[in-house]
């Protein structure tokens, strides 16, 4: 049973998933409407990067992880109501293209 589980996750993948979980957990502490918005932005961001970023581009993924952690810390602050800290994402869009 355990052997057929397949899908071994690399350390980096685990870090990404753990960060994603962290964001979703942080979103729970916000009012419903903000929470929905945060969830949709976070989910879109992770999914977009999961498709666009080359999985071998470790340096860039590490950068994204670091940036994500910082944003998560900001989001955890009870004063952070909305997604303002996450609105940096479009600028990252440009970075990916250059």
């Amino acid at each position: 049973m355990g052997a057929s589980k397949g899908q071994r996750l690399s350390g980096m993948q685990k870090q990404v998933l753990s960060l994603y979980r962290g964001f979703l957990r942080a979103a729970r502490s916000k009012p419903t409407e903000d929470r929905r918005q945060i969830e949709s932005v976070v989910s879109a961001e992770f999914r977009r990067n999961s498709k666009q970023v080359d999985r071998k581009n470790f340096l860039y993924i590490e950068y994204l992880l670091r940036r994500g952690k910082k944003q998560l810390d900001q989001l955890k602050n009870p004063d952070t109501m909305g997604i303002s800290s996450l609105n940096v994402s479009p600028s990252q869009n440009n970075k990916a293209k250059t």
Partner: protein
Amino acid sequence: MASLTGASLNFTSLSSSFQRTQVPLRGISNVNSVSFQSIRMRPGSLRFRVSCAAKPETVNKVCEIVRKQLALPEDSSVTGESKFAALGADSLDTVEIVMGLEEEFGISVEEESAQSITTVQDAADMIEKLIKSKDA
């Protein structure tokens, strides 16, 4: 009462203690009636229970949440054996499913165990384990 009996049976088969029926009953207050029923019912249900540790209600609830999370149609077949990956879930979806289950059942899944969940049955087993340890 019925569900209590079910729970103790599951536990019995899980720990595969054929003789030591006392062991899994430690946490249950109504020891007499439960142990009596577990003795009576053991021969018939043990065989079935071995491969299916969690209660059917839990499994069904998990199936429902998985369906909702993955936006699968009402009539799609999601069973205990269903693998999240086979249902079209990627690792991000799996995180979302586990988070959804946490809220639904009021539990908190640790990082480590969250990553070992790949099927509906895994999830249901883990939920029951967590609920049990929460009540204990």
